[in-house]
């Protein structure tokens, strides 16, 4: 077992802050290797035999349990690709916390986490994913892929954040929803300097009365660039809503490309997108409470990026 140094502990704390769940199963991966694993009777974790990664099995009826699977990269020159599959039984209520923290100094480190969720009937999953980079110089690259397959009456609430320090990322999310399934995604992105971030969402509303709400809130500063692609396909009586809100400062750029595709007359699909600078009215209001312009802008951005689902 490898131990964690101070920076690694800090990364771990930030990407995987503990929550109010009594028993958690844990798998911590550091620089391409599993360093801590804790399982229990309800949540089993086993290593994949054919490639890097783990299988997580959650038993039918498991309630109020948690599973933490953070990844830390603290050396440069490493490309870590990992495949994690979650097999969630029926009637489960679970919180899963994943994420990756990179601190690589001057070189390049890359993490590609491919997560697949197979969610059973009547099960509820809260999935929290944080991506964070620390340190100056170098390249910290993260390309997360998340695929969610949802059975009848299941619910998935995803909160994903990429707040700072990631130089390049390509984020891909795919979801297929069964009858009455509900998917809520709240994505928060913040890019600075010359960082780039590309987000792809594809949601297929296959089951009758399935619902998806996807909200992406992003702030692009300096010379950073963000590209947002969304595609919602309604194949049945369903409701799909995608919202992309972006704030620009400096010479940044945000592009949003929506696609909504309804193939059933009872499908209702909505796309909203708004990109612009911080509203002057908001700045004036906060200044009239005694904040200077910079403080006002910071408060507006902090509020905008705070995830509430």
């Amino acid at each position, binding site marked *: 077992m490898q131990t964690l140094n101070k920076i690694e502990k800090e990364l771990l704390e930030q990407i995987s802050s503990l929550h109010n769940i009594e028993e958690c199963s844990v798998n911590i991966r550091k620089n391409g290797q599993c360093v801590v694993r804790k399982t229990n009777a309800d949540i089993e974790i086993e290593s994949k035999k054919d490639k890097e990664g783990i299988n997580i099995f959650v038993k039918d009826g498991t309630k109020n349990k948690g599973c933490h699977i953070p990844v830390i990269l603290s050396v440069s020159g490493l490309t870590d690709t990992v495949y994690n599959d979650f097999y969630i039984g029926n009637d489960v209520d679970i919180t899963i916390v994943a994420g990756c923290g990179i601190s690589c100094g001057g070189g390049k480190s890359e993490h590609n986490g491919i997560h697949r969720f197979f969610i059973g009937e009547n099960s509820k999953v809260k999935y929290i994913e944080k991506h964070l980079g620390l340190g100056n110089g170098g390249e910290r690259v993260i390309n997360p892929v998340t695929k969610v397959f949802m059975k009848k009456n299941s619910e998935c609430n995803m909160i994903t954040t990429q707040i700072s320090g990631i130089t390049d990322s390509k984020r891909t999310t795919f979801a297929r929803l069964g009858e009455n399934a509900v998917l809520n995604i709240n994505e928060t992105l913040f890019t600075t300097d010359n960082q780039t971030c590309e987000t792809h969402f594809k949601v297929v509303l296959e089951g009758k009365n399935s619902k998806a709400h996807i909200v992406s809130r992003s702030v692009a500063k300096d010379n950073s660039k963000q590209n947002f692609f969304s595609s919602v396909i309604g194949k049945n009586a369903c409701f799909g809503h995608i919202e992309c809100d972006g704030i620009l400062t400096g010479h940044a750029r945000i592009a949003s490309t929506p696609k909504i595709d309804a193939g059933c007359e009872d499908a209702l699909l909505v796309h909203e997108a708004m990109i612009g600078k911080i509203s002057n009215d908001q700045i004036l209001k906060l*200044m*009239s409470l*005694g904040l200077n312009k910079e403080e006002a802008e910071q408060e*507006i951005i902090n*509020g*905008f990026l705070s995830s509430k689902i």
Partner: protein
Amino acid sequence: MLTIKNLCYKTQDKEILKDVNLVFENGINVITGQNGTGKTTLAKILMGIVTATSGQILLDEKDITKLSIDKRAKLGVSLSFQQPTTFKGITVFDMMKLANKDIKTIKDACTYLSMVGLCARDYINREIDKNLSGGELKRIEIATILAKGGKVIIFDEPEAGIDMWAFDDLTNLFLTLKDKIVIIISHQKRIMEISNKIYLFNKDGEIVVTDKTKLFKEVEESKCSTLRSQNANTK
């Protein structure tokens, strides 16, 4: 004391405020008049949001004409906006804490929400966004300004969107601020009734300082003369 000296405000094609000279003292000062006579512009000039073309503003002898919005706010000038601004992600509690650094707990903030008739528990963690109704936003705006406090508190049409049932509470609330310079832009008789002084803005850019008895008499007479002329026309 808030003194306005020779204040003018012109846009490219219109003179909105013409040589305004006013002194506001502690108590309830109501500004009224027809739409488009520069009442909100004056409120914004006092807060520093709009810059006057010429003139001077003194707060207790200190010249604040060139001070920025935040510096005026720190000196005790507060403005409750006519149209409250919405924010994605900023909650009522966040806003209260920004308005007053002494607000640390939810209980501290609740005091001010209760004053504007909102059940604090229902609102404290809500975002100040478009999911709130106009009346709710207005009450939160007023509560924020009460939390901030100050020497000069300006309310721009505080009654807009607030239901009639809450009206007595609102006027009583203003009466509790009588030891400060309270400036209320309003068209409501019930607010004028509690005023110490009324400033009537007319279309020619003039401001007439009056009191409620005189103003109500004039309004009544003007209504009568309009009725008389309408009757004469129909005969």
